């Protein structure tokens, strides 16, 4: 049976959730100089607008800023939570439109995920005075089922808009393409 026939109803099943935003999720931690310095130290980035208040304040930015390319790192979820908080997090994740899409795809065996491409656009500098970062996330497209080198699966595109807690500024957007597949082909 051809893929088109086998997965004929999938697009209709996914349609109600495409383009729907999840409730805003806040970063686990406020953006602080410690996180900025650890990110920069990781790749030995000596840019003084991340390190030296005197230089940063005299620069066009007027304050210490975060490297915008650290956007994803500054928004990584907590890597451990007390058990009494884990249920809420999992519940929040699975009840979103994206969670529903992933559950539908998992029902077809597409459970292995790999990032294909990521693009970030930075609208404004952000930094330690901006508090936590809020993420508004939505799936914008899911491709028809395709046969890839690593197995059968779909390409899912999602967007994340990043807002500062203070002043609610939209500072960046990320577009991600991921492949969700069944792992029946060669390993990536």
């Amino acid at each position, binding site marked *: 049976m051809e893929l088109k026939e086998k997965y004929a109803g999938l697009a209709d099943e996914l349609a109600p959730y495409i383009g729907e935003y999840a409730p805003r999720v806040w970063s686990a931690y406020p953006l602080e100089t410690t*996180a900025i310095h*650890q*990110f*920069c*130290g*990781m*790749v*030995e*980035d*000596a*840019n*003084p*607008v991340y390190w030296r208040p005197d*230089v940063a304040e005299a*620069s*066009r*930015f007027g304050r210490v800023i975060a*490297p*915008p*390319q*650290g*956007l*994803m*790192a500054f928004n*990584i979820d907590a*890597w451990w939570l007390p058990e009494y908080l884990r249920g809420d997090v999992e519940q929040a994740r699975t009840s979103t439109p994206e969670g529903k899409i992933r559950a539908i795809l998992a029902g077809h065996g597409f459970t292995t995920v790999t*990032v*294909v*491409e*990521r*693009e*970030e*656009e*930075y609208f404004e*500098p952000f930094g330690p005075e901006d508090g936590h970062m809020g993420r508004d996330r939505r799936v914008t497209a899911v491709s028809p089922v395709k046969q890839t080198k690593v197995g059968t699966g779909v390409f899912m595109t999602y967007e994340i808009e990043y807002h500062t807690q203070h002043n609610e500024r939209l500072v960046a957007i990320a577009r991600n393409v991921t492949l969700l597949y069944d792992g029946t082909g060669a*390993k*990536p």
Partner: protein
Amino acid sequence: MTVRPRIPWDEVVVGNKLEPFTFDVTYSTLAKDVVGTRDLYRIHHDPPFAQENGAPNIFLNTMWYQGLIGRVVTEWGGYESFLRKMSIKINSHGCPGDTLRVGATVVGRERVEDRLLVALDLTIDNGRRADAVVSSVKVELV
């Protein structure tokens, strides 16, 4: 190293290549990756787990490369420069023992309203694949 404040946009020439840059990846690099990005996915710090999942060893995550690319671009553009856009695609893992060679070329220069933008294409060669990482960046100069 000292990062210069700025490079004049008028003096940027399309086709110019940035100074080649190398970075040796060690197990310590991978440990710093975990600290710098708080990414505790085992594939980046647990060698048997990485190998069970088809990788030759633990490997650098996307966020580490974003950090390195941002560093290379703003060291060139100066600390008054600001990244406006970055796309990144990973084609091959960067593992302990690898020497990464970063190449960057100016591919465009444009003024959009009051912004002075320069586009660069970057590749990272990990010794096994010349385009282990490919990235396109737009940086705003002053």
